[in-house]
């Protein structure tokens, strides 16, 4: 059976949601820009492991996320320990991450491109798993990784003055599809060091939020069964619980 079939769902699932999730699973399994398919699926598994991680729970309760707390992450993959730590922190305590922390992580195992791709895999897994949790569904089994090499593509036109990671300021020839020039919101540009991460984000956002053309119109609900005010209220509550300023 294909993933995200929802054949036993008591609720009608929009076909564009199923299609977006299947697209995301296909991308998750394939080699990315900096990680192999196997590593990407392992990162997704660590997102799920983080939910039941006692170390993450203790850290979240601590005054500082960097307080020395003994213990090991709840991990089942062969990823490097520093990568596992990054994945768990992004999953369970993202609002207390800092630029000095990120700079300390960057080294032999983790380039900034690899870090941005980790964010992409973490948020892709989490946004779909959260949908399932909200509806009481079992989590979709992770896909089988596909063989192949990462593309190692670095876009042109990057700037490094706005965020902790480089972002595209001027779209190059191979990135013209990311957004129309001249400007795009920072939250869309944020992962543009890995252009495929932005492409995947656009597919998921169009299905889970509202289609791109409806975003600027506060009266447009994208044909959803809840009003735009209800949509934005949910968005604000999710952001508040996550202590997200943006």
């Amino acid at each position, binding site marked *: 059976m294909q993933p995200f079939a929802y054949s036993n769902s008591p609720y009608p699932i929009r076909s564009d949601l199923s299609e977006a999730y299947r697209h995301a699973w296909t991308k998750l399994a394939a080699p990315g820009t900096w990680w192999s398919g196997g590593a990407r699926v392992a990162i997704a598994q660590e997102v799920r492991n983080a939910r039941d991680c006692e170390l993450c729970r203790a850290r979240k309760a601590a005054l500082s996320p960097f307080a020395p707390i003994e213990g090991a992450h709840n991990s089942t993959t062969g990823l490097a320990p520093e990568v596992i730590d990054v994945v768990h922190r992004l999953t369970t305590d993202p609002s207390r991450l800092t630029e000095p922390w990120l700079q300390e992580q960057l080294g032999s195992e983790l380039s900034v491109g690899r870090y*941005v791709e980790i964010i992409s895999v973490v948020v892709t897994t989490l946004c779909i*798993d959260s949908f399932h949790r909200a509806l009481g569904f079992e989590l979709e089994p992770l896909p089988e990784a596909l063989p192949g090499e990462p593309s190692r593509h670095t876009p042109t036109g990057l700037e490094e003055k706005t965020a902790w990671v480089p972002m595209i300021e001027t779209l190059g020839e191979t990135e013209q599809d990311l957004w129309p020039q001249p400007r795009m919101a920072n939250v869309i540009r944020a992962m543009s060091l890995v252009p495929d991460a932005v492409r995947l984000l656009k597919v998921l956002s169009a299905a889970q939020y509202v289609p791109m*053309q409806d975003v600027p*119109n506060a009266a447009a609900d994208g044909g959803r069964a809840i009003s735009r*005010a209800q949509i934005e209220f*949910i*968005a604000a509550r999710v952001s508040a*619980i996550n202590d997200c300023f943006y």
Partner: protein
Amino acid sequence: MNSQLAGETTNLDAIREGSGVTSGVPDGELLSRLVELTLDDSADNADELAGVRDAIVAAMDAPALVDAAAVIGNFQRMVRIADGTGIPLDKQVAMISADVRDELRLNEFGSANLTPAPGPIGRFLGRHLRPLLIKGIQMGRTQAAADD
């Protein structure tokens, strides 16, 4: 403090304080409870979550529940992109939202220091040019969407 949220008057305290506060948004308390229980990893709340789902289906309908769940997923993604990359608020948004951010005590969040606080002039302009700035943001994004 009340504010306009997509055209509806909303009690901003409900965004920060949660489902115990009347929001002014239709079925806002149920939707807020759905968010809170979905995001709570610390307890086995499956039964309570099931009850909230039933209540939303009864009060609204099943497609509304599905769309609400999808929005929860979407913003679980967006908050981590923002916090993981250290982006500041876009300048125009920072100007027009200064008062609301104060009211919601968003400046207490650690990531708030990524966005420089607007000075008195910025706040004045944000308040008094708000409709124009919003229009500008909308026009820019509408053009972007059309070009897409």
